[in-house]
Each structure stands twice: as structure tokens, then as C-alpha cells.
């Protein structure tokens, strides 16, 4: 193969990434900086791992197409059987560029790696992103208020209950992205009014310096050596995180999404055994060793693992009999001033590249199982996460009537746990 400066630079970057000299984000930024299109980047990233450098063939095929918008569309279409027709996407990109702006609400750059996704967007389409500074930190409720009252936002990232509410109140517009068929039925609105983009699952963050027995499943938490060791993230009648911890415990004990009671009973057993501590599974309490096994969202557990950096050693695992996952969803505002840019944003965030960026921020992208089956998850990234096999037992909770029902049962049931 003839010497190609672009290939040489990619080689150098992937070498540095694999050798651990640069982190994933710097690697991606470097690739973006080379003017590569997003699908090309995702191929390179997928090919990269701590074990192997990308093969020249993979690089060549990834970079053979010049990084123009239409080429991006072409390779996007080539990568997924369900991708929209090239002509349609080209037209969408042109229309979005003509609108010249996108206004986002509730999409903060530091959350689930959104900054890297913003970079991709700007690199590929060059359309300015507005609203982040003012509305980036909005809660889901505030996002809906802004859509309703200011009419400014084009897109928003909301909790699942609010996505459903937005549709009921006529605040969102329907759109089905190119990867629609990849997305599980319960994670999207049948009419396209919302679509889940990523999720977190309940996991065990185990301080392996203090806990010497293997913790793989819920029943392991009852071991007599674990006195005052197990903590949840707050009062489950108030905090969503610990509410899902209790609910997840139901799965291994004969309950599940339809029945939270066995989870409450399990927590009661844990409390009676003296293993459940009242200390909150906060970062501070996990790092100090006050809470030795934290039941909380996987992305929070992975973040505290990285924060602790070996002091203490923390391993994050998904209970083998399963746990529950709670997704976030993406909506397009019904009165979006830039409807095409909003649609193009959907195309971007459900693309392989952006979905892998979510994973890099430890949020599991909604197309995780598809990406995993296609072998597109870089080994280096996979090694930082609990195994993909464990995630097969994770159940996505999207039915808000079931959430309300479980909360009602918990309201009375939790009193028995703490008061008896």
C-alpha cells in the first residue's frame, strides 16, 4: 500500500491509544481532528483494542471515502441494513444545514459523554449547537416547561416518564430514525413520539479490598461475613436509584417488573441479617469503606471505581440473575424551530459512533446488544465494563403505569423494613 499521511496519523493515534498514552476521548478527538467522518471513526474505534492495532485493510476501507457529508451518508447506509436511503439522508443534512442551528434542552456536555457527541456533530455537519449553556442542566420537568413556554428547543433528553408525558401533552413530534428496527419495542413509542437513547442498570459496586468472598448475585449479599456492608443509594421512597435497587432485588426472588414485593422482602431479610447499612451508598461512603457493597446504577458505580483509582479497589458487576434498567429518551419538540436539524440529531445519536460514545461515558446505548452482536464494541472499552453476557439479564423498565404501581407498594412496604 502506498504511503498515506492520513493512514500514518491514524496509525500513530491508535498506537498511542492502545499503549494507554492517550485516553479514549483524546483518541476520538484526534480522529475527529483528522477530518474523518463519523462512521469512519466508529470503524476505526471498533477495530482498535488494547490487544491489536487496526488492520491496514480496515483503516483503508474506513478512510477510502472522503469525509464529506454525502460520503458519511453513504457509509452510514452501508453499515446498517435499516439505515435510511442515502438520498434521504443527504437531503436531510442539506435541509438541516439550511436551518443553520439546533437548540437543545437538558443535554449537558459532561453527562454520558455528550461533549464528544457535540464534537462529532460539529465536525460532521458544522451546525452550531445552542441552548446548552442556558438549558443544559435542566431537569426533565423543566425541559418540558421550556418546550411548552419558550418554543425554543428542538430536541431534549428526558426521563422515560417525561417522554410519555410529552406525547400526552402534545409537546413532542414523531420521527423514526434509521436504526428504528434495532430498538426494542418497549424502548420506543410505536408512533415515533419518543425513543430511548441510553440506559443504566442496577449493579453491585464491590470494594474487593474489604469483601473477600465473590459477589455475583443477590443471594451472596446475605453472607454472614457481610455485617453492615451493603448499602443502597438513599431512601427508596425518595430516590430513584435506591427505588430501582429494591425493585431489582425482586427479580432474583420470584418477582420482577410486575411485582416489587419480593424485592422489599429481600431487603427486609438483608436488614434483619444486619447486612444492610443505613449509610448511604454515596461516593464518599464507598471510597471510605463505610459501604463495602453498593447497590446502585452501573454508570455511577463505574464512575466511583475510576474516582477511587485503586484506593480501594472496586469491581462493578451486574447480578447474575438480573437487574432492572431505567432508560432516558430523546424527544423532538412539537414546535421545533429547526425540525430537520432535530431529525439529523436523532440520526447522529443513534448512529454506531455516537452510541459507542455513550458507552464510553458508561451509559449503555439503546443499541448496545446490536453493537455487541456485531462485534463493534472495542475490546479496550468492553474491558472496563461488566461483561456483556450479564447485561442479557437486564430488563428495561419503560412502562410508567408499572413504575407507579411499584412505588405504591413500596410506600407501605418500606415502613416494615425500617420500622420493625
Amino acid at each position, binding site marked *: 500500500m502506498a504511503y498515506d499521511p492520513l493512514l500514518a496519523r491514524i496509525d500513530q493515534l491508535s498506537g498511542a491509544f492502545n499503549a494507554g498514552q492517550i485516553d479514549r476521548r483524546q483518541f476520538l478527538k484526534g480522529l475527529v481532528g483528522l477530518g474523518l467522518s463519523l462512521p469512519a471513526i466508529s470503524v476505526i474505534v471498533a477495530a482498535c483494542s488494547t490487544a491489536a492495532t487496526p488492520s491496514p485493510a480496515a483503516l483503508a476501507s474506513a478512510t477510502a471515502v472522503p469525509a464529506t457529508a454525502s460520503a458519511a451518508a453513504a457509509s452510514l447506509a452501508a453499515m446498517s441494513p435499516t439505515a435510511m436511503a442515502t438520498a434521504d439522508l443527504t437531503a436531510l443534512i442539506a435541509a438541516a444545514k439550511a436551518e443553520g442551528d439546533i437548540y437543545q434542552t437538558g443535554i449537558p456536555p459532561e453527562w454520558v459523554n455528550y461533549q464528544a457527541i457535540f464534537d462529532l456533530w460539529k465536525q460532521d455537519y458544522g451546525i452550531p449547537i445552542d441552548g446548552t449553556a442556558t438549558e443544559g442542566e435542566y431537569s426533565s420537568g423543566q425541559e418540558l416547561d421550556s418546550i411548552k413556554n419558550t418554543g425554543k428547543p428542538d430536541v431534549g433528553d428526558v426521563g422515560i416518564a417525561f417522554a410519555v408525558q410529552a406525547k400526552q401533552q402534545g409537546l413532542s413530534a414523531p420521527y423514526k430514525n434509521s436504526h428504528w428496527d434495532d430498538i426494542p419495542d418497549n424502548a420506543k413509542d410505536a408512533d415515533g413520539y419518543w425513543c430511548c437513547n441510553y440506559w443504566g442498570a442496577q449493579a453491585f459496586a464491590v470494594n474487593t479490598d474489604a469483601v473477600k468472598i465473590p459477589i455475583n448475585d443477590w443471594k451472596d449479599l446475605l453472607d454472614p461475613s457481610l455485617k453492615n456492608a451493603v448499602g443502597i443509594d438513599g431512601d427508596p*421512597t425518595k430516590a430513584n436509584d435506591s427505588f430501582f435497587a429494591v425493585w431489582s432485588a425482586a427479580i432474583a426472588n420470584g418477582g420482577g417488573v410486575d411485582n416489587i414485593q419480593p424485592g422489599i422482602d429481600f431487603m427486609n431479610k438483608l436488614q434483619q441479617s444486619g447486612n444492610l447499612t443505613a*449509610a448511604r451508598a454515596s461516593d464518599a461512603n464507598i471510597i471510605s469503606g*463505610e459501604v463495602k457493597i453498593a447497590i446502585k446504577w452501573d454508570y455511577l458505580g463505574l464512575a466511583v471505581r475510576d474516582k477511587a483509582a485503586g484506593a480501594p479497589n472496586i469491581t462493578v458487576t451486574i447480578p447474575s440473575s438480573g437487574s432492572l434498567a431505567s432508560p432516558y429518551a430523546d424527544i423532538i419538540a412539537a414546535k421545533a424551530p429547526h425540525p430537520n436539524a432535530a431529525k439529523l440529531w436523532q440520526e447522529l445519536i443513534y448512529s454506531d459512533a455516537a452510541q459507542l460514545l455513550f458507552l464510553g461515558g458508561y451509559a449503555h446505548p439503546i443499541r448496545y446488544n446490536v453493537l455487541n452482536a456485531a462485534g463493534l464494541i472495542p475490546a479496550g472499552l468492553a474491558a472496563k465494563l461488566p461483561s456483556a453476557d450479564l447485561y442479557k439479564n437486564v430488563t428495561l423498565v419503560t412502562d410508567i403505569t408499572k413504575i407507579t404501581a411499584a412505588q405504591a407498594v413500596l*410506600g407501605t412496604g418500606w415502613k416494615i423494613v425500617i420500622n*420493625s
Partner: protein
Amino acid sequence: MSATTPASFAGTPAAAKRRGGRAAITLLPFAVLISLFLVAPTLSLIWGSFHDNKTGVFTFENYSYLQHPLDLVPFKNSLELSLASTVVGGLVGLLIAQAIVSSRRPIIQEIATTFSSVAANFAGVPLAFAFIATLGANGLLTRQLLNAGVDLYGGGFKLYSVLGLTIVYAYWEIPLMVLVMLPPLQAMKPAWREAAEILGASRWQYLRSVAIPILMTPFISSLLLLYANAFGAYATAYGLTDGFVALVPIQISNLINGDISFDPGQADALAIGLAVIMVVCIGGRAILERRSARWLAR
């Protein structure tokens, strides 16, 4: 809230009336404050506790917690915790206050008073963290004791329990007791003791017949203050136990801002239960204060 005119204040009846009127005007801002932040909320609590918060219909349903053993656990925990921390804080605080007074060194008195004022106000989440770091399952003291062969948690102790909370509450109850008992102890006149001794009283007789009767009322009223203080405390307990130890203030908070157990009507009813206990404590203290004021006025 009416301004009373002390007898010594009266000149001619007309002058008294005029002065009374002026006093009432100066009291106006206070009266407004009290009605906005004490009287109005209390009335709204009483009203809310007897009405269904959804339909607005008159009901006793909000007080149904009085019949459910599980719902009375927060009251039991709160009563136990307040009683225990009052006894500990009251006795230890009294001894320290007496030691300060007997030292007769102004510098010690000043340092002790300053420290007590600071410690009595150190509460909430920072105090909770301080205790987790000290006496938590993996706390500094816990680990040092373990090294010395004393296994606190193995022996059943838990910081996140009524006992643990009692220790934490004592942290501010003791200095509070010191602060409120110092003035009456300092007001005990040496002349009383000398007079008793001249009349041939032994030390014990002096204590029994003079000191204890005079100090009893401020002592009991201080205990009532400590008790009410412990009963109403919220932030420290919540920061420490995250709702795992059910206490009345935490239960009220769950009912008004919990996503799951939202029931403002029942919260009002619980708050009335709490208010009754507080009124008994503080009212009792006010009555006793008035009795001892006669003796201890300087």
C-alpha cells in the same frame, strides 16, 4: 399576643394607657412576624390535618396513624432518642457547668462558653459526616478500638441506630446544657451558703434545703429545652441514617416531599402530634422559668 403593662410602669391611668399604646406599636413588627411564621402556619396545619388533602372534605382519617403500631414507631423512636440524649446531655452538661463555675478562672469560663456556643450549633450533615468518619463501621475510632481488641460493630453497636443517634445528639446537647445552666449556677450567691453555714447547716443540708430547691426549676426547664431540641432535630438524623431510623421529623418530610409516599394531610397530622409534644415541653419550661426567676434575678 397582648402587651401587658407591669404595675411599676403605671403613672396616671392616662399615661399608662399612652405608654401601653406606644409599647404595642413597637411590638407590631414582632407580632406580624409571629403571625406570619408561627400562628398562620399552625392554623394551616390544624386545618390541613382535619381535611382530606385531595377532596378537602372534613376527616379524622389523617390521624389514623394513632391506631397503627407501625406508624407509631417514629414516635417511639423519637421519644426514646430525645429522652436518652436529654438525660446524657443534661447530667454531663450540668457537671461541666458546675466545674466551670467552681473554677473561678475567667479565662476557663470564657473558653468553655465560646466552645459550647460553637459546639451547640454544630449539627446537620457536617456533624453526620464527622461521626461517620469517627464511629462508622469503618470509622477511625472504630478501627483503632478493633486493633485494641474491642469490636464495636461485632458487639452489635451501630452508629445508624437510636443508640448511635443518642451519641451524636449528645454532641450538641451537652454544650447546650452548659450554656443554659451557667447563668443560674453563676447566680447562686455565696452569701446564701455562708448564711446557711452560720446557722449550722452541713454541706448536705445546704444542698438539700437551699441549692437544689433553687436550681431545680432551671434544671428541669433546661432539660425540657434539650428534650424539645432533640425531638425536632432533622438534618443530622437524616444525614446520618437516610431515613433508616424512623423519626417523626423524617416521617413528616417523607410525606411532604417524597415522590412515593406523598400525603400532606397525614404530614399535617403528624406535625400536630409533634407540636403537642413541643408545646408541653416549652410551655412547661416557661412556667418553671417564671418560678425560678424570682430567686435568680440579679
